[in-house]
C-alpha cells in the first residue's frame, strides 16, 4: 500500500471536516473493498478517516413505519437482525448471498452501497480503464467481458455494480440519508447509483464530502412473496452473473404490485417500473411473467462473451416471479 496519514473521527461533523481538510482523503469503515483496491494501486488515497467509532450502528424503527439501518451496522448484523429477517426477508437473503461470513462481519451497510465494480480491467492497472483512469479507454468492450453489463452501458464503460444487498434495496425502494458540509439530504435508491455515460469514474451521486448516515426501508417489505435469485459460477462466494430481486403483493392469484430489480447486468441495480406495472391487476401466470421479462431486457446488448446473459436474465426473471408467487425455496 502507498503511504497515507490516518485519523479517527468521533462524530459525523468531525469526519466531514477531516475529509475536506485533507487532500485525496477517503472515509474508511469496513475496509474490505477499499484496502483491497489500495493494495493493488487502484485506489490511492493520501489520508484515511476512520469512521468506525461514530454512533451509526443501530437498526431502529423509522417515521414511515419501516426500519432505519445505521450506515455502520455490519452486513451480517443486518441480515440476521430479527426485524429484517421477519419484515424484509428479501434483503436478508440478498445480503447472505454475497461475500463470506468473515467479510459480512466486517463490511458495513453504507460501504456496501459504495463498493466498486469487480470488472477485471478495473483491477488490472496494466490495462486502460475509463473508470480507473478517465480517458484511457475501455478494455472490456472488446475484451473478455463475460461478467460485464448488458443494460445501460456506454461506449466508455460496461462495468457492473457488484452488490447483492443493493439489488434488494432497489426493489424495496429504500432511501439513502446522507450528510455533507452543506447539510443533510435524502437520495432515493434509484438515484443513488449512476449509469456510466461519459463519466464512468463517478459511481454514485454521493459527493466527496458527504457521508451516508443511514438507509431507510419503507414500511412495505413484501415478506409474503419474494425471491432473491443469484445465478453464478459456484454456489457460494462468487459474484452474480445475473441476480433477481422479485417481490409481489398478491390478492389471491392476482398481482396487486410487483417489484423487480436485476443485479450483475448493469452499472447499477436495474429497475424498470413501467415493466413492473404490466403485472398490476394481472393473473400471476408464466405467460404474464414472460412478457415482463421481455420488457425488462428490451434494449439489452451483449458484447460477445456476455451475450448469454440476456436470455439468462429473462429466464431468471420468470423463475424468480414464479418462486415469489408460490414461495418455494429460493436458490
Amino acid at each position: 500500500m502507498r503511504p497515507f496519514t490516518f485519523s479517527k473521527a468521533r462524530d459525523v461533523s468531525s469526519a466531514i471536516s477531516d475529509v475536506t481538510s485533507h487532500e485525496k482523503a477517503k472515509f474508511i469503515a469496513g475496509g474490505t473493498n477499499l484496502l483491497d483496491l489500495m493494495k493493488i494501486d487502484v485506489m490511492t488515497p493520501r489520508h484515511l478517516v476512520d469512521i468506525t467509532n461514530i454512533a451509526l450502528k443501530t437498526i431502529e424503527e423509522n417515521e414511515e413505519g419501516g426500519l432505519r439501518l445505521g450506515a455502520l451496522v455490519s452486513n451480517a448484523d443486518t441480515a440476521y437482525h430479527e426485524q429484517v429477517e421477519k419484515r424484509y426477508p428479501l434483503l436478508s437473503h440478498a445480503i447472505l448471498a454475497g461475500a463470506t461470513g468473515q467479510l459480512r462481519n466486517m463490511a458495513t451497510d453504507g460501504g456496501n452501497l459504495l463498493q466498486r465494480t469487480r470488472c477485471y480491467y478495473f483491477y488490472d492497472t496494466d490495462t486502460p480503464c475509463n473508470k480507473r483512469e478517465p480517458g484511457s479507454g475501455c478494455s472490456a468492450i472488446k475484451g473478455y467481458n463475460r461478467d460485464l453489463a448488458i443494460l445501460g452501458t456506454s461506449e466508455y464503460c460496461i462495468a457492473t455494480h457488484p452488490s447483492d444487498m443493493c439489488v434488494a434495496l432497489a426493489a424495496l425502494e429504500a432511501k439513502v440519508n446522507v450528510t455533507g458540509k452543506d447539510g443533510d439530504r435524502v437520495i432515493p435508491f434509484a438515484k443513488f447509483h449512476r449509469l456510466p455515460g461519459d463519466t464512468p469514474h463517478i459511481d454514485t451521486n454521493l459527493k466527496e464530502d458527504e457521508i451516508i448516515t443511514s438507509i431507510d426501508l419503507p414500511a412495505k417489505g413484501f415478506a409474503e412473496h419474494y425471491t432473491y435469485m443469484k445465478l453464478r459460477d459456484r454456489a457460494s462466494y462468487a459474484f452474480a452473473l445475473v441476480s433477481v430481486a422479485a417481490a409481489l403483493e398478491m390478492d389471491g392469484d392476482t398481482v396487486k404490485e410487483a417489484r423487480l430489480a436485476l443485479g450483475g447486468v448493469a452499472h447499477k441495480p436495474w429497475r424498470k417500473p413501467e415493466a413492473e406495472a404490466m403485472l398490476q391487476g394481472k393473473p400471476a401466470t408464466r405467460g404474464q411473467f414472460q412478457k415482463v421479462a421481455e420488457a425488462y431486457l428490451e434494449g439489452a446488448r451483449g458484447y460477445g462473451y456476455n451475450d448469454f446473459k440476456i436470455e439468462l436474465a429473462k429466464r431468471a426473471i420468470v423463475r424468480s416471479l414464479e418462486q415469489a408467487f408460490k414461495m418455494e425455496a429460493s436458490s
Partner: protein
Amino acid sequence: MENNSPALPPKQTVKLRINGAEKQLELAPWTSLLDALREHLNLTGTKKGCDHGQCGACTVLVDGRRINSCLTLAMMQEDKEITTVEGLAKDGELHPVQQAFINHDAFQCGYCTPGQICSVIGLVNEGKAKTLDDIRDLMSGNICRCGAYVNIVKVVQEALERSETR
C-alpha cells in the same frame, strides 16, 4: 517500505489487546492487522495467503467474530479483544475445535488450518448453520487447496453439536 524515509507519514502508537495481553506498538498507518500480528508481534500462526480477503488463511476473532485480518488496519482494532490461533489453547489443552481438526484428519499441509479453526469458532458463535449446506456456504470464505473440506465439515458438525449440548 515502513522504514528509513523521512518523507513518510510518521508512525502512530497503537494499543492492541491480543489473546488477553495488552500490546503497545509504533506502526505505520498502513499496517494491516495481519502484518501487525506476524511482523511486529511474531504471532505467525495467523497466515498470509492471498492478502485480499479471498482465502481466509488470515482469519482471526475480534470480539468473538471472525474477520479477515488482512483487510483491516491495526489502527482500527484498538479497544477490541483480538484472538488468534495462539490464544485458543487453555492450560496446555487444545481448544476443542483444534483437537477436532486432529481427530477428523481435517488438514494436510496445514497452511489454511489456523484460519479454518478461527472461522469454525466464529461460525459456531454466530449460531446460524443448521444444515450441511449451511456449513458449506458459511465456510466458503476459507479455501483449502489440499481439499480437506469433507473432514472440515465433520469438524464443524461436531463443534455445532457440542455447542448445543453445552
